[in-house]
């Protein structure tokens, strides 16, 4: 246990170091722009709609003075970082909101999508990888490999178009966007208490199963689109690991003792194969996050990606764009830390390696 704790603390330190490097690099790129542009990061909320040129210039000069935007890079960076830690991420003119508040409001939407697709692809990827590895070069193996190949080469937006034209237009089983309009009225009314922000769970907590059902109907297609790519990667890695493990001596010994093949596969080898496979999903956390945002845009989900899209669509909105970038890095690092911790608990070898 102490080893796990130590490894976790080390991990935390490395996260902080990575965050410092990332933010320093980010601010270094922002330094390419002139001080007047950087001042827009600190524009106040109650900006009058009509200002003369002089008034605006004076305001900008004030901001530059107050936030030390003419100082050398390290000083500016330190001030900016201090503001970030305090949660002052700037006010976004396109969102009409504080960037930090907007990000926090949108987080449950993205989290729900990520959660369900992770819950789908990790078990399925492991199971199909194990089956493919155990039945190497049999029909099941070829099936899994072919599906995985198609899944990785099929762009997500084409899959989204296909799914929507079939399951939404033809069959009307599932639908794009987050909720139906009638349900959306309900959840925004006072009768509906938002506890977690995840609609599928909040629906149950409010004793409104129809909300949960509706949320799942809207989640089905995006979750599938997101999960299938990562399922393919996980299945492939697990298959390779299983083939490696099944050639080990202890498997031969177990077979010689007459232990059933199924027992060997699911009890003995899977345990050893699971940790390296999880490491591969650790590496693909960034692509998972990019995938989540892409899928959100494809299915009109209006999660965190909304902030990026809006900041891109209109004129310069530095707080939103920068906030979005920092937010995604923080999320990636947190997910990596969680996966790392899980691995430390699951795999004793990982614990020994840290010492």
């Amino acid at each position, binding site marked *: 246990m102490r080893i796990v704790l130590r490894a976790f603390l080390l991990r935390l330190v490395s996260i902080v170091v*990575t965050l410092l490097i990332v933010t320093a690099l980010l601010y270094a790129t922002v330094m390419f722009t002139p001080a007047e542009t950087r001042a827009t990061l600190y524009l106040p909320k109650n900006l009058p709609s009509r200002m003369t040129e002089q008034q605006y210039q004076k305001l900008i000069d004030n901001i530059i003075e107050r936030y030390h935007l003419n100082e050398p890079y390290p000083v500016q960076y330190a001030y900016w970082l201090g503001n970030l830690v305090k949660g002052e991420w700037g006010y976004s003119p396109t969102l009409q909101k504080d960037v930090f508040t907007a990000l926090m409001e949108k987080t449950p939407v993205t989290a729900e999508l990520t959660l369900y697709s992770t819950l789908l692809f990790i078990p399925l990827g492991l199971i199909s990888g194990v089956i493919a590895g155990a039945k190497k070069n049999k029909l099941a193996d070829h099936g899994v490999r072919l599906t995985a190949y198609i899944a990785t080469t099929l762009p997500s937006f084409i899959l989204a178009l296909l799914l929507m*034209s079939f399951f939404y237009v033809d069959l009307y089983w599932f639908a794009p966007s987050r909720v139906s309009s009638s349900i959306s009225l309900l959840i925004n009314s006072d009768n509906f208490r938002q506890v977690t922000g995840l609609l599928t769970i909040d629906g149950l907590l409010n004793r409104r199963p129809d909300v949960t059902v509706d949320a799942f109907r809207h989640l089905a297609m995006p979750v599938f689109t997101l999960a299938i790519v990562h399922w393919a990667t996980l299945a492939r890695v697990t298959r390779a690991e299983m083939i490696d493990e099944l050639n080990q001596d202890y498997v031969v010994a177990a077979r010689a003792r007459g232990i059933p093949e199924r027992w060997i596969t699911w009890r003995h080898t899977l345990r050893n194969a699971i940790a390296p496979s999880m490491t591969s999903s650790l590496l693909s956390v960034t692509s998972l996050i*990019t995938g989540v945002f*892409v899928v959100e*845009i494809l299915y009109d989900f209006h999660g965190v990606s909304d902030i990026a899209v809006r900041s*891109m669509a209109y004129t310069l909105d*530095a707080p939103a764009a920068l906030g979005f*970038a920092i937010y995604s890095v923080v999320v*990636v690092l947190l997910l990596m830390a969680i996966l790392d911790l899980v691995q430390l608990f699951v795999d004793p070898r990982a614990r020994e390696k840290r010492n």
Partner: protein
Amino acid sequence: MKPLRCYFTHWQNLIGLFLVLVFLVVAIAAPVLSPQDPEYPGPIKYVGLRTDYRPHTPAEVPPLGTLSTQISVYHALVWGTRSAVVFGIVVASITALIGSLIGAFSGYFGGFINQLLMRVTDAFLSFPIIAGVVLIQLIIKAIAASVVEIPSGGGEFFELQDLPKSLIFLLSIDPVLIAFIMFSWMPYARIMNSVVRRVRTTDYIEASRALGAGHLRLIFRHLIPNSITPIIVMAAKDVGGMVLLQATFTFIGLGGNSAWGMMLVLGRDWIISPGGIMTFWWVFLPATLALILFGIGWNLLGDGLNDALNPRTT
């Protein structure tokens, strides 16, 4: 087995090579296959009234029919191939170059330099590419806004020639291209780093050093050529991956100039129609097939190269 013979013994590799060659030939022969309209150079060519929104069926003149506003599907497909091939190869080779240089230098010198460069690599690895695209877009916009006052009110027009040269150059940069290069070199650096660190203590490097070879000669003459195989394999797969990602970004409206992505943007409203999905098949099927085959082709090529060049698996 010799690498070449090993490559040609598997039918998957042959398919991969064939697909890639087809795309390369189409890309090179694009001006012959579908001549440009001198008034509108680029992958978009109008072959009818631009106010006509209904896609027209394939006929003699536009061989694959038209998209809405009468854009020739065939022309966009052919010139889209050229831009996709160029984009993929440019991005993959530049990222491979940057990544392997960083990895080789940090692995060769080791110690503090290695620690620093690998931490920076880790920092970049935790950066989702979509955030990179947004960020690069922001920087370009911010610099552009500081160079020239972009008129905010209506009624003011300015000619393209009046803009300063630097601004025209700035606006012609593709943010997606820059972001892809900046945020995908890390895996190359990691692979190169681990291989170089393993190889640099071997005897032949020591021998070369004893003969008086300098740092640069050791790195470029001995270390990089001996660790290049995984880099080549990864770059070949990346050509396909980058083009698919570019099309995705174009499709969701975050920039990128993928002609295939643009075809699907224009075509998506016609996929679903009362007569069934195949009524307007030519608006989405050519671009879709091109994208999928492009991805599969480069992936198969990469897998084949891996089997052929990697001595352990053969």
